[in-house]
């Protein structure tokens, strides 16, 4: 992968996370995750009924590498909210369990179903 390909990929990532409130870089698609870690995050988002854009890195090796460089984060999945990197599978799961994830969506103005309310 050349420097140009990498910088093009990073430009596309910046556009995606600027143009969509919630973006999940994942292996597979929201309906058909192809990795258990990606699947866990997709499941949390769908449980919370959060609208998001899923980007399948398996279909795009440039994005797969670019997103690791962009966030200085070595693994997929990666969740972005309002352009900000929130975390990978472990962090998202911890934040979901503690309620912080729902609070962050609410604070960012992202529609979310709060299971703590009836």
């Amino acid at each position, binding site marked *: 992968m050349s420097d140009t390909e990498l910088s093009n990929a990073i430009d596309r990532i910046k556009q995606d996370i600027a143009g969509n409130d919630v973006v999940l870089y994942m292996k597979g698609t929201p309906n058909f995750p192809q990795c258990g870690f990606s699947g866990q995050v997709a499941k949390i988002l769908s449980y919370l009924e959060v609208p998001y854009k899923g980007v399948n890195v398996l279909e795009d090796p440039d994005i797969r590498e670019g997103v690791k460089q962009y966030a200085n*984060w070595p*693994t997929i999945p990666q969740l972005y909210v309002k352009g900000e990197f929130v*975390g*990978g599978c*472990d*962090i998202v799961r911890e*934040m979901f369990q503690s309620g912080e994830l729902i609070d962050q969506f609410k604070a960012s103005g992202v529609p979310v179903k709060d299971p703590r309310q009836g």
Partner: protein
Amino acid sequence: MPMPADEIERMIKAALPDAEVYITDLAGDGDHYRAQVISEAFRGLSRVRQHQLVYAALGGQVGGALHALALETAPPETA
């Protein structure tokens, strides 16, 4: 190539000398680990920054030689 647990612990402690490190081999295959790391270096940092410190300590092995490392990080609890 799987990576032995004591090597993971050694690398983390080399970068974070005060760290308490607990490693569980989740699948018994030397390839899927859970690491719990407690270090003063994490205090005041976001979870992302805490994990980045551990990834940096492991020198680019995560995502490569280390396929799966479930990570939990925290500063020591203050009494």
